[in-house]
């Protein structure tokens, strides 16, 4: 791969509602392996932010440690980023979200970072319904340490070392559903058509939005016998196509009757589930769990929007935080002054 970022961009790149082009959402050049699924996810995030016209500087990118967690460097250079410590991004994101409830938070993690070392924080992030998009680039193995099985490696999947995994893999989407996540999606890094609108919907959602993205590791987990190779994933994909239509465009968007089912988000934007899957009920958590499990039993990977509760209360709402971000409060808002302190003293005599 090239380590020089091409500077040339088409002079007539399309502009979004902010008058920005996709180039305004660029990151640094990726240092991941050529063909890495993660780069497709980075591109999808970049495109989703561009299409949804989110000002880059109003986005904060957070990650843990691992190949996946390097990704935030590769999109949105105009956003602040935080590459934290292994498995602990959820807590950093929680704190950041408490400090400023007005930014859009995108967390990027991996299967090691989330399903092993970070499992505790991940579960509690769901439980608190922190308003953020949390994407797991799931390749079933540890990349930076050269190909060990991760906790999401499927039972029987053969590792780079030729050993079949004796343990059942952790299904992060199933787990998120069970723990009460207010938005659960699954996708495939190779399915841009589905992933992009899913990310846009996740960012529009005013609570914790989880997307588990199967993202093959070309170097350590793309061989015959691996259940998370490109070909295996493609062959077993059971994808529910969808479109994301922001509120302002919704009025003008037309779909043929009977071909779609619309799911309206809290901000008025709509997710259109297309064609064959239009009978899927995204508001039924039990049915979602059931569908994920049935697909798994059939050896399929069910992708799409699995569950959505557009009216859930997020952490800032549950804590009844002031509308003004906590980091924007000044001394007058925060410091009760000497008169109050004197009366406190009085009570201690």
């Amino acid at each position, binding site marked *: 791969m090239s380590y020089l970022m091409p500077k040339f961009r088409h002079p007539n790149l399309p502009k979004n509602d902010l008058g920005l082009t996709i180039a305004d959402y660029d990151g640094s050049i990726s240092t991941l392996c050529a063909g890495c699924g993660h780069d497709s996810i980075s591109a999808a995030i970049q495109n989703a932010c561009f299409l949804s016209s989110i*000002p*880059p*500087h*109003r986005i*904060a990118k*957070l990650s843990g440690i691992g190949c996946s967690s390097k990704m*935030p*460097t590769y999109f949105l*250079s*105009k*956003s*602040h*980023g*935080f*590459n*934290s*410590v292994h498995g*602990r991004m*959820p*807590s*950093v*994101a*929680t*704190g*950041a*979200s*408490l*400090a*400023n409830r*007005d*930014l859009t938070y995108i967390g990027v993690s991996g299967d090691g970072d989330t399903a092993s070392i970070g499992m*505790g*924080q991940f*579960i*509690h992030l769901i439980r*608190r319904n922190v308003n953020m998009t949390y994407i797991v680039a799931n390749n079933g193995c540890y990349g930076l340490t050269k190909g060990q099985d991760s906790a999401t490696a499927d039972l029987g999947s053969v590792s780079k070392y030729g050993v079949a995994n004796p343990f059942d893999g952790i299904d992060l989407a199933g787990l998120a559903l069970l723990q009460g996540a207010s938005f659960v999606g699954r996708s495939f890094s190779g399915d841009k058509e589905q992933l992009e609108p899913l990310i846009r919907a996740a960012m529009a959602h005013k609570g914790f939005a989880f997307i588990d993205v199967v993202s093959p590791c070309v170097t350590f987990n793309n061989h015959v016998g691996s259940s998370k190779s490109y070909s295996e994933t493609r062959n077993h994909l059971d994808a529910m196509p969808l479109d994301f239509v922001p509120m302002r465009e919704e009025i003008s968007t037309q779909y043929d009757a009977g071909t779609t089912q619309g799911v309206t988000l809290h901000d008025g934007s709509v997710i259109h589930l297309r064609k064959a899957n239009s009978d899927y009920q995204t508001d039924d958590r039990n049915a979602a769990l059931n569908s994920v499990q049935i697909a798994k039993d059939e050896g399929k990977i069910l992708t799409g929007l699995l569950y959505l509760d557009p009216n859930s209360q997020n*952490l800032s709402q549950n*804590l*009844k*935080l*002031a*509308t003004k971000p*906590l*980091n924007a*409060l*000044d*001394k007058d*808002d*925060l*410091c*009760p*002054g*000497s008169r*109050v*302190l*004197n009366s*406190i*003293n009085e009570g*201690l*005599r």
Partner: protein
Amino acid sequence: MKQIAGINDFVVKFANVNGSGSASANHLFAKAIFRMGIPVSPRNIFPSNIQGLPTWYEVRVSSKGYLGRRGGVDLMLSVNPQSMEKDVASVEPGGYFVYDSTKPLAPDLKRDDIFYFGVPLTEMCMREYPNPRLQQLLKNVVYVGALAALLDIEFSILKNLLNDQFKGKEKLISSNVHALEMGYQFASENFKCPLPIRLQRGGNVAPHILESEHILMNGNTAAALGAIYGGATVAAWYPITPSTSVIDAFAKYAERLRIDPGTGKKNFAVVQAEDELAAMGMVVGACWNGARAFTATSGPGLSLMSEFLGLAYFAEVPVVLIDVQRSGPSTGMPTRSQQSDILAAAYASHGDTKQVLLFPATPRECFDMTVQSFDLAEQLQTPVIMMSDLDLGMNDWMSPPLEWDDSYQMDRGKVLDAKGLDAVGEWGRYMDVDGDGIPYRTLPGAHPTKGAYFTRGSSKNEMAVYSELGEDYVQNMDRLLRKFETAKSYVPKPKTHPPIAVKKPKTKLRLGALFFGTSASPAYEAVEMLAEEGYPIDTMRIRAFPFHISLDAFIHDHDQIFMIEQNRDGQMRRLIINECEIPPGKLTAVLNYSGTPITARAIADQIRQTLNTKSGDVVPLRKETA
């Protein structure tokens, strides 16, 4: 046999059963003495247990205003058969033993060098109160009544305190007052009251105490108020004794003082995290995003937070941590006090790290230093750890009132907002523009096109770009060291006092004593005791790490220095040896690590022992093997 005598100078200890409701009665006793204007320092010496195990409450009364433990017990109030044998044994000869005489005292508990006062507490309560719960609870109040007669506590003060405590619950007030009167009456009729140890308003109380309007509060509450006044908006924490009450108090005061008047919504967030790792992670995230955030923890939590403290040090995120120390290692003695996290905190995390530490010695300082922690953390863009301990944090201390200067402005340090970013030319997150090692930071969302950067725990260059180049790494690490040097002039300076005049000194050696936190009060007392014996000792109270240059000077100016602290390994001594250019042999460790706070007598004994060994024969820190 001579009775111990003394006005406003004695130690009373209560031996109770944990969970029997004794705490509030014992507090009533201490608070009444406080309201009489007499210096008092109560201490809860409690087990890691909710109900059933022995617990003690030690009340020091000191006309001169010594608030540390003296050592020894002059009057023991014992209502716990489990511990009675030891409780009897711990009374000073000529002292007093007050007990529940409903059942006769076992013959082996009789000493002929102390004075016994039996009060039939159980019998009186069984007779007076039909409700078994009340029988139990009011037994404690009856003994306070008896002590009021024995020690001459002003009865009206006790009644007022009960009125305050049970405001609006008239029935409770009258039953409690009745119990008090019953005890008072019994003691007055059956014993010669008051005892030779007793209280007297005014009397011999030191003038500087009589003149000021003291408060009685614990360090954790003071620290919580410091967080309120310092502008903290996010508190993330995980419950752990003895730090829990910091956050409890913060939440309580925030609910009162931080509700937005227009909307009723909260200008603060308290989140109980899933563990200490997450608690510190939330604080790091919130501070990175421009809020003032803090957490409070104790030893095991500090260990868990070390990873994040390393990140915050290296990525230069301001963080405030209040460490209320307890006995370690591991679970250690979780309800006992120590100063044993010094090294773990000073060098928290792997790699080369140095953390800024503050050492409060009084509730007033817990308040002031917590406020200051938030300023320092943002000025220096680094974690600031306030090292309190169980003794300071959970016990009530007589303290000068908290003071607030309304002209205070939060010092947010070098933060470039949109205007600032437009004004500066080239900006790099880790550029040392001012030569003090402190770079300029930006907050997420500040500017549409400028100031965005990647915060990371990995090595980077001045522009915050990932770098594994040795020179970039070294430049950054050296700048961090420069910043730590800058910190020396930002943190609170050590406190010294004019030397105590000694007539006919017994030594020509220039002696010094160093101490910090809760070791200070008993250390000052010990130094005065030794001065009377002919040993002049200069003192310096350390208040922060990195150490101020005057610490080096103090050590150079003295021949022998006693480093008084409460841990086994002389951690502060080691830190000084590590960080200052001084000959280690000059520092003699004076230690206590029993879990109960160090006493003035123990300090004086250890120093005396060292001074009385022949010159050069310093008490070995390490025993030689045979």
